[in-house]
């Protein structure tokens, strides 16, 4: 069984490498800026959802407040850049580090909570942070921050002329998030997390340090999401509290993983690849009326997929059943 699992992991890695290579070639043929924009968003959501999945899927601690870390990443980068002229690359690392530390500091009291009490705690903590930033004048308050264009280079991580560099960075981010998950899946952490998710009491009695497992998952998850936030700030060059730290965004981040297959390696990728283009296309085709048709379609899609495929879209591809078998 072990060798079967090892085989599957090798196969996953090869498939991922091929997919990444194909994805990297796509912009050479697709020059349309609108389509490129959707591809960047798809990759970003894949990365974010993959990172969310580490804490909420693998470790089973469902967070509906991950917009907090996304916002922290975006705001750290934007503030350091606009106020102190610090390059976004450092801002990105700083944002990630701050988020990881805050995730652990918040995890310390929160990880004692279970079920809905934990979920609601994650929501209200993000909501408190949102309200504080909305009232913080130095950080632009509710209006947010306009990030001025000061160059067109990898050094400054600003590209005025082409979306391509953003595309390749988003692709790299999605690959890194995937690889981290792939690597953790078969590490002692991965096994601890699944034990914590299935039955924390049993795991504790078998010597799994439940508390530290959760802390580890929270730190990794928050770091990666914050890097995504930094990227987003540079990509759209304008951020405001509601759009990067609002409750809606926490749900949007979770959706690809939930609909794709929560707690699976391919779920977030599959979910993002299907959901994000569909959302963007509905928005531009029927959303222009401003009459909410895009919302109706989008919401109905969420209801339909979550009811019809509780294990997510991956179950259609049989990726999940094979993996479950192998992991046990």
């Amino acid at each position, binding site marked *: 069984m072990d060798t079967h699992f090892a085989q599957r992991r090798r196969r996953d890695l090869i498939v991922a490498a091929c997919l990444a290579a194909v994805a990297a070639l796509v912009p050479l043929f697709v020059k349309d800026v609108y389509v490129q924009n959707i591809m960047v968003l798809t990759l970003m959501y894949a990365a974010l959802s993959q990172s969310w999945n580490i804490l909420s899927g693998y470790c089973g601690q469902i967070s509906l407040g991950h917009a907090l870390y996304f916002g922290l990443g975006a705001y750290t980068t934007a503030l350091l850049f606009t106020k102190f002229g610090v390059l976004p690359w450092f801002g990105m690392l700083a944002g990630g580090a701050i988020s990881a530390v805050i995730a652990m500091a918040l995890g310390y009291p929160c990880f004692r*909570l279970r079920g809905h*009490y934990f979920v609601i705690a994650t929501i209200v903590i993000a909501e408190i942070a949102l*309200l504080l930033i909305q009232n913080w004048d130095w950080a632009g308050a509710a209006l947010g921050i306009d990030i001025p264009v000061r160059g067109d280079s990898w050094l400054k991580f600003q590209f005025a002329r082409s979306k391509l560099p953003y595309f390749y960075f988003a692709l790299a981010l999605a690959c890194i998030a995937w690889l981290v998950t792939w690597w953790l899946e078969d590490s002692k952490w991965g096994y601890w997390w699944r034990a914590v998710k299935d039955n924390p009491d049993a795991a504790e009695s078998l010597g799994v340090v439940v508390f530290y497992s959760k802390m580890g998952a929270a730190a990794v998850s928050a770091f990666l999401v914050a890097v995504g936030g930094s990227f987003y700030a540079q990509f759209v060059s304008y951020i405001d509290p509601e759009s990067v730290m609002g409750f809606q965004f926490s749900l949007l981040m979770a959706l690809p993983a939930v609909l794709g297959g929560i707690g699976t390696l391919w779920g977030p990728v599959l979910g993002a690849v299907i959901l994000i283009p569909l959302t963007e296309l509905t928005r531009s085709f029927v959303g222009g009326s401003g009459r909410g048709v895009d*919302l109706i379609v989008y*919401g109905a899609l969420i*209801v*339909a997929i*979550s*009811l019809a495929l509780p294990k997510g879209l991956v179950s259609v591809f049989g990726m999940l059943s094979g993996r479950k078998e192998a992991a046990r």
Partner: protein
Amino acid sequence: MTAETIIQSLASGLLMGLLYGLIAAGLALIFGLMDVVNFAHGEFLMIAMYATFFLFAFFAIDPLLAAPLVAAALFVFGAVVYLLVVRFAMRAKANAGMVQIFSTFGLAIVMRGLAQFFFTPDYRSVTNSWVGGKTISIAGIYLPEPQLIGAMLSIAAFVALYFFINRTDFGRALEATREDAGAVALVGIDKNRVFALGWGLGAALVGLAGAIMAIFFYIYPDVGASFALIAYVTVALGGFGSVFGAFAGGIIVGLVEATTAMILPPSLKSVGIYAVYLLVVFVRPRGLFGSL
């Protein structure tokens, strides 16, 4: 700040808190019955407010008279939502919690979209209703009449709910189904019927709250979102599984909100509510009256 203004704020906070309790009652009832958190609860409130608005605008029915009609309409709506969506979410063999969260969340988005489609995103309000904008003075404290009526309605609703759950056959069936849904089938109680009625009742309660809210609050497609989060916190603060915890939770939330608004800028008044929730569950992880 004088003692008078403090008492004034706390009195308003208490009234608002009782109304929060009424908004949260349905959520608490449904959760207690079947461990499902309805993420479309705020949208139930939203359609109740629109229903009240249209009854007023087209048929000149005052919100106070419309309240029972709206509650009845919401009862039917809640039961239908259970039968069409939630019933299937309950059957999920895997990831049951996520399926429930996201199927009701998807429903919330559909409802918001439909509201935008049919009612446009414009802000509406009920003007010149019987009690709208009026205040009453009791011992030198001015109380807004809509909130006062809402608060009394909330107390009445919780008393009725108490007798209903403890003294009627349906209430007992509700309790029994909650204890063991499999066993009740053996004594001839149809689980789905009880759940559908439970959803109807929960929706009817939020319908009552919506009719009162419509008197003094703007009505727009996203109006539910801000109250939904307060309702979740109210229920969790009182403790999941306890309908009367929602009553206590509502009062606490209202008083904390009023107190925070006195200390911090008004735009930060929700921070106090959230902070109190965190403090309570950190000390007592099952809320005030929750069962684990």
